[in-house]
């Protein structure tokens, strides 16, 4: 029997629009966390989607790169992002967030994000949360326009 290497922790499929998805009470017994999202986000203008740990909207930074189908770009930010390059999008997108050593109390927390919306962009980012606290909650926060009905968000734990 194949070994399950991703332990499912929690999942949600939106039955109404929602601007903030929050995972709480995350156990500390895994090495890494993986957040997988399949979402629609109908924005009318350039909008970002934030990634936050333990509800902290400070202490974040990032570097990212994006291809929009005509040019590439690289950028930095002073928050953590789930999606940085926003814009008008009506199709489903994917995001995969990998959070390494999330429960460690001797280091800042790094995460890698791939966020793809085929009608808009392909994007890769590296985030840093400048805190040595263990991550016990993860929030995905829309700047303005909420996630659409049917969007899914699933969290997995990875055992070392």
């Amino acid at each position, binding site marked *: 029997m*194949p*070994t*399950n*290497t*991703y*332990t*499912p*922790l*929690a*999942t*949600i499929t939106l039955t109404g629009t929602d601007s903030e*998805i*929050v*995972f*709480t*009470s*995350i*156990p500390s017994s895994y090495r890494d966390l993986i957040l*997988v*999202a*399949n979402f629609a986000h109908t924005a009318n203008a350039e909008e970002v989607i934030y990634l936050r740990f333990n509800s902290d909207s400070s202490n974040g930074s990032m570097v990212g*790169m*994006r*291809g*929009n*189908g*005509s*040019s*590439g770009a*690289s950028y930095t930010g002073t928050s953590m992002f789930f999606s940085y390059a926003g814009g008008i999008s009506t*199709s*489903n*997108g*994917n995001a*995969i967030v990998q959070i390494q050593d999330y429960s460690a109390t001797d280091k800042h927390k790094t995460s890698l994000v*791939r966020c*793809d*919306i*085929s*009608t*808009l*962009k*392909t*994007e*890769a980012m590296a985030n840093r949360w400048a805190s040595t606290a263990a991550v016990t909650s993860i929030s995905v926060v829309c700047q303005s326009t909420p996630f659409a009905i*049917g969007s*899914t*968000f*699933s*969290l*997995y*734990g990875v055992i070392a």
Partner: protein
Amino acid sequence: MKLIQHQELSSSQASITFSSIPQTYTDLLLVVSARSTTGNDAFVTFNGSTANFTSRHLEGTGSSAGSFSRTDNFAGWFNASGATANTFGSWAMYVPNYTSANNKSFSIDSVTENNATTTRQFITAGLWSNTSAITSIAVSTSGNMAQYSSATLYGVLKGSDGVTTVS
């Protein structure tokens, strides 16, 4: 994540295909190590269809970066026949909600391995505008998939541990 199937080619052939994919998982991860018998282009097929694919790509060459869109089933690069001998490109595709009744979005990361100045790295945002559940996936290239190319399909199943909450 659980292993569904692994394939390795004992001789070159047109594609590596996974058929009768179980519908019991939430997402799929396909990891490929591949070399082409001719050119670099990689292609993906869902349910035998090459239609209704769109994608956006970010490409790095080692000296420059660029972006382009495609309206076919192009899916990055594998190592071409002229690449350094015995080297294979690395390629991974994640397909969330592959059994849903929505159009299927997917993410691809690929890189060619070449001990030379010509190499490529891609990240790709893809969309298959088809509401059918995915029951088969094939990867192919502009020529044939070379001997020893391999592919591994994994299933990921969502759920709850009874402790973590989400709202």
